[in-house]
């Protein structure tokens, strides 16, 4: 029997490996081929080599991850509690009931496959599937909802295909073991997920059924990555404004209607043609993407989770595939049929026909025609309430069933044999096995890491490819967490080479988005800032090689936009850096919001400083009831008139157009003052532009530093990672320890060795006390002297050695290499240092020794045990 089982196991294992290999082969076949071809080539270019390396590494990772097989031999069952290894009488009874049920079932439905009722567990003990479910409410709030819970299970476990894809497994391990090894097949996945869902209050069931190939092999390569799917923009319904009573009539349209119609027709034709082409293209693509027909379609066994509506405000029944953690409608065509399902209380067999996948199934478990239950009267009555029409029929059936399964009448499901599911906080945070997981989607690859696993805070990376074979990278998105520089997402577009960094609020420079092609200054870049975080109200700064545009909001001077054009640098100063040699500015354009406190004709909307031409153009805001805006242009000319006086202001230096001509603006004084004001403003603006350039440099420098350092922040509540608090705690401990040591030392009994010589328990006589004291003191004296001698001897030894060395040096001084000389010199200095220290210590000892002696004597006098001594002296 034992031999047989082993043999079976071996076979199983072989099969399993084969299946795994087959799956792997199917996936990597396309990649392998070109590689193999290239291997044969004798002349490999550098690039090819790199390419090859890359591909090989890609190929090897999944294989190596699955190599250690998840078999019984590797499972350590010694630590498992006794309930795992034996069956209670009640469980035995249940197994009998199950067997009976199974017999009846196979008698009634001889053409259906055998029921999946009591597979063996890791200790080779048959256990009923319902008792393997252990409803547990996890202590993590993240696991309270089904979606995050399913995602966790899918992340936490590594998928192992079924040994035989056409049969349910022979073993079903407890969730304890599965969690321990972080591996499992679809039954393990769904058992764990179902336990957690029932624990958090869902009406969840494990399903044994049939799924498509992709589903059974957790093959997502034909799925679109959920992260790449753009959320559909909710099209806002344009409310058609009812024409009001006095809405003006539109002007008469004088266009020919016939011509318009013709035009529309032509347009439609063109569009139809385009659409057709597009559709053809799409069809072709679809064809290419379509899977090859599966020979075993409809026979592959799979297990997933069914969640029924009703509890936890679930509005509608749905499936969860535990492998991927995705939810599916019960109509989904990847789920091909259901054999049976169970929760922790009961077991139901599907009596409905699954010719049309699961689309026609009705999940009313109280209906005995559709669902044959195994145990009577657990929570069936509650379920039948879902459809009131059926209640009458159910009652009748109940009566029938009562007669049929009389023996089961009072029998309910025994308590689960599995221990409570436990996930340590570390494991919960690490999530994926080894904190890393790679998922291959259609034209996309998603990699996940646990937080703090990567030193730069990278937690996930999505690579999108152009083609199905995943060779041409389209774009890369990298998500970060816990970065000190608040970097959240890095987006690299490979086609345009544009990099975009997104930041969370809290960057020292209030960065929000930074998109660039290179980190060099004065290149194309866009920097966006958090709106309220900056004092100057800057929200966006765009740069190209020759221009810089800034957008502002909420400034007290109503500035909204500043645009500067530069000229290339003057050549001779090209050596100096950008900081000391700003590019000459050709033109600055500034725009302003409307300042409600000023009248429109005095409120500047736009001013242009043409620095090269010494010209300033102003455009004012347009008044509410006007269509033209005032304009003014100042020309600066410093000329001298015929008498040699400097011309301060002449009427032709200011050309203005005013919508409503005013008197005071005609005056030269007004114009002169306006011009002076503008000149000051011009200087300020130039300074501002220059400062902005400097700021960009600063930001770039800061970003580079941050990228290089990539420090991570650690919450002060994270006691495990927070080095500072750890150090502090350790220091505290150390201090405590030292304190303890000192206490011990003070309690050190200096009389103990001498008292030991005397018989214990007796009171000391005076003579004894004197002797004891003298002994103690002389001993101490001896120790002091010894110590002094020791220091002395060391000192002498050191001095002698030094002298010897010096002698040797003087003798061999000529022949020495520089290195030896260096060595000698360093030795000398060290030796001198040691000698000096020893000397100091000796002196100190000499000083302190008498004091110590006296102190001991004093102490001895005061010692209560030598009270005799004291008495006499007193």
């Amino acid at each position: 029997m034992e031999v047989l089982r082993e043999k079976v196991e071996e076979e199983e294992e072989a099969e399993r490996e084969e299946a795994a290999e087959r799956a792997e082969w199917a996936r990597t076949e396309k990649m392998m081929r070109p590689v193999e071809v290239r291997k044969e080539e004798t002349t490999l270019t550098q690039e090819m080599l790199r390419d090859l390396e890359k591909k090989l590494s890609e190929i090897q990772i999944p294989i190596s991850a699955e190599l250690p097989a998840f078999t019984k031999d590797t499972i350590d069952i010694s630590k498992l509690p006794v309930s795992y290894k034996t069956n209670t009488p009640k469980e035995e009874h249940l197994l009998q009931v199950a067997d009976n049920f199974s017999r009846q079932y196979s008698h009634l439905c001889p053409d259906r496959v055998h029921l999946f009722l009591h597979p063996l567990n890791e200790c080779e003990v048959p256990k009923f599937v319902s008792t393997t479910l252990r409803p547990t409410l996890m202590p993590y709030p993240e696991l309270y909802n089904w979606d995050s819970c399913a995602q966790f299970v899918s992340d936490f476990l590594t998928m192992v295909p079924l040994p035989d894809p056409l049969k349910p497994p022979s073993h079903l391990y407890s969730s304890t073991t599965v969690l321990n090894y972080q591996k499992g097949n679809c039954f393990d996945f769904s058992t764990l997920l179902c336990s957690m869902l029932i624990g958090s209050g869902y009406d969840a069931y494990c399903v044994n059924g049939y799924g498509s190939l992709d589903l059974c092999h957790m093959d997502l390569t034909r799925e679109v990555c959920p992260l790449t799917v753009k959320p559909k923009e909710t099209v806002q319904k344009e409310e058609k404004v009812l024409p009001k009573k006095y809405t003006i009539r539109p002007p008469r349209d004088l266009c020919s209607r016939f011509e318009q119609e013709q035009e529309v027709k032509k347009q439609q034709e063109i569009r139809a043609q385009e659409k057709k082409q597009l559709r053809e293209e799409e069809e072709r693509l679809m064809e290419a993407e379509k899977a090859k027909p599966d020979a075993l379609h409809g026979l592959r066994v799979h297990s997933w989770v069914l969640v029924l509506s009703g509890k936890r405000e679930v509005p509608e029944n749905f499936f969860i595939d535990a492998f991927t953690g995705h939810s599916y409608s019960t109509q989904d065509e990847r789920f091909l049929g259901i054999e049976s399902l169970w929760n922790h209380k009961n077991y139901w067999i599907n009596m409905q026909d699954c010719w049309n996948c699961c689309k026609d199934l009705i999940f009313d478990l109280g209906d005995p025609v559709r669902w044959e239950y195994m145990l009577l009267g657990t929570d069936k009555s509650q379920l039948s309430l879902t459809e009131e029409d059926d209640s009458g029929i159910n009652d009748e059936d109940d009566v029938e069933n009562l007669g049929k399964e009389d023996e089961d009448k009072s029998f309910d499901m025994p308590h689960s044999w599995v221990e409570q599911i436990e996930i340590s906080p570390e494991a919960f945070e690490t999530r994926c096995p080894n904190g890393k997981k790679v998922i291959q989607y259609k034209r996309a690859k998603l990699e996940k890491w646990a937080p703090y696993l990567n030193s730069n805070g990278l937690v996930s990376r999505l690579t999108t490819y152009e083609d199905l074979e995943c060779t041409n990278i389209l774009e890369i998105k990298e998500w970060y967490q816990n970065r000190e520089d608040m970097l959240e997402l890095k987006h690299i577009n490979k086609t345009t080479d544009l990099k975009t960094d997104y930041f969370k609020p809290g960057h020292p420079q209030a960065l929000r988005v930074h998109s660039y092609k290179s980190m060099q200054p004065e290149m194309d870049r866009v920097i966006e800032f958090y709106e309220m975080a900056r004092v100057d109200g800057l929200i966006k700064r765009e740069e190209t090689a020759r221009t810089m545009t800034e957008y502002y909001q909420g400034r007290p001077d109503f500035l909204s936009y500043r645009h500067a054009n530069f000229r290339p640098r003057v050549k001779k100063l090209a050596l100096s850096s950008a900081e000391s040699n700003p590019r000459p500015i050709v033109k600055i354009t500034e725009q302003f919001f409307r300042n409600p406190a000023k009248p429109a004709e005095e409120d500047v909307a736009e001013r242009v400083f043409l620095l090269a031409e010494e010209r300033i153009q102003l455009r004012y805001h347009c008044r509410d009831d006007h269509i033209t805006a005032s304009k003014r242009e100042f020309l600066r000319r410093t000329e001298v008139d015929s008498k040699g006086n400097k011309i301060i202001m002449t009427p032709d230096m200011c050309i203005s157009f005013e919508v409503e001509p005013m008197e005071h603006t005609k005056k030269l004084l007004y114009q002169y003052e306006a011009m002076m004001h503008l000149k000051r403003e011009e200087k300020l603006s130039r300074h501002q532009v220059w400062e902005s350039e400097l700021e960009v440099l600063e930001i770039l420098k800061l970003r580079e530093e941050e990228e290089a350092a990539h420090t991570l922040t650690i919450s002060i509540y994270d006691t495990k990672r927070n080095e500072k608090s750890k150090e502090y705690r350790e220091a505290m401990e150390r201090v405590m320890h030292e304190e303890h040591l000192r206490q011990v030392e003070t309690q050190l009994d200096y009389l103990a060795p001498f008292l030991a010589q005397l018989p214990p328990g007796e009171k000391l006589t005076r003579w004894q006390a004197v002797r004891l004291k003298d002994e103690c003191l002389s001993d101490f004296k001896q120790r002091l002297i010894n110590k002094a001698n020791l220091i002395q001897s060391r000192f002498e030894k050191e001095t002698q050695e030094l002298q010897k060395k010096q002698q040797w040096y003087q003798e061999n001084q000529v022949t020495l290499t520089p290195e030896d000389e260096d060595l000698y010199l360093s030795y000398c200095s060290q030796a001198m240092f040691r000698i000096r220290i020893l000397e100091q210590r000796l002196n100190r000892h000499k000083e302190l020794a008498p004091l110590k002696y006296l102190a001991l004597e004093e102490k001895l006098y005061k010692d209560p045990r030598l009270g005799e001594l004291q008495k006499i002296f007193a």
Partner: protein
Amino acid sequence: MNRLCDSMEPKVMDDDMLKLAVGEQGPQEEAGQLAKQEGILFKDVLSLQLDFRNILRIDNLWQFENLRKLQLDNNIIEKIEGLENLTHLVWLDLSFNNIETIEGLDTLVNLEDLSLFNNRISKIDSLDALVKLQVLSLGNNQIDNMMNIVYLRRFKCLRTLSLSGNPISEAEDYKMFICAYLPDLVYLDFRRIDDHTKELAEAKHQYSIDELKHRENLMQVRLQDERAQQEELEKHKTAFVEHLNGSFLFDSMYAEDSEGNKLSYLPGVSELLEAYKDKFVIICVNIFEYGLKQQEKRKIELDTFSECVHEAIQENQEQGKCKIAQFEEKHLSSLSAIQEESELPNIEKMILECSADVSELFNKLMMLEMQLVEQLEETINMFERNIVDMVGLFIENVQSLMAQCRDLENHHHEKLLEISISTLEKIVKGDLDEDLPDDLRALFVDKDTIVNAVGASHDIHLLKIDNREDELVTRINSWCTRLVDKIHKDEIMRNRKRVKEINQYIDHMQSELDNLEYSDILD
């Protein structure tokens, strides 16, 4: 110091003096040269300093319309006058003068800082108009009554006050009193009032202050009530049905009707009158409510109309702006092209093109405007028709209700006549039981007298009703015509303004082009 000034010759504030001052205090250096070239208009001056000039009388300041700051300290002014036109004044310094009463400041509503230091003022008064007053300096005067402080409570913005050197500042309670009565004050006599003093003062004068506050509150409430009533009445007036929501009209009918009042003492008349009044008031209330409803309808109609017109104009303006922006873009590029071009024939050709563009823009803008005018005209006519119809309907309905009133009156008149005649008969027969007042008995001399009396009363009543009706009809009709006129006039004004604007813009563009041409030829 004042005494010293007295001994010197007073000066007159004439044009020369003002010009000199303005010139001295005006812009300096380069700007000053320009200013000298052009001369400064008095109305452009914002600040003027006229101190130590022995001015006796403030005069000739009416031109300084925009003056913000005026310093007239250290003169010998005796009366505050001639400041009526300086409504923008924010700062006025009249310290070290010989002013005896505060006056002539009623138009200076923007004044924030007033200094009357070292004068001869004995009473704080006539400052009611200065609602924005923040700083008031009244030191070294002759204010001797503490109650002057209470007057200052009305200035909600007052933060700084100086009163030292007055007789009242000698009083021992001076500081506490001011702190208690002016709790918002921050500086008193150039010193900050600390919180502790404030608390002390408040505690000390709490009782009287509370009383004062209570009185002020009552006043406030009464004012508010009055205002609310006034507003309500205004609302009713705009609906043309004021005083119709009660027995006001009925009461006014009997107010001047001595005969009617006398007759009401007849037996049975008071009951009749009561019933009559009830019915009459019901009809009045009907009219009132109908009037309010109609007013609401008219308002909605008017609002929709103005909204639609506004939208139309806005849209048209947007189109115009868009056209101009397009044009300007093109124009700018072609101008720069002209400047770069060196061949004279080419330049001429391009200038011609430009002017063609300008005239095209003119045509476009004018077309837009004409289109809008047509559209608006149609809408306005429609609105006019509707509003006239509404008013007509309203008048008709009110008239029918008023006719009901008249019917009631007629009915009442007949009844009254009946009673009167029967009473007369009884008196003639001598079997009247009740006592009648003497003046009433005087009417019952013969049939004609009594009939005349009753008739006179009836006539008065009818007259009142007619008057009310006429008033309503005339007012609503005049409102209607005025409204329609205003709409037409506004539209015409708008049109003219727009046409003027377009012309101005086009002229500017054209002249710019001409200048270019001219300068080119010169070159």
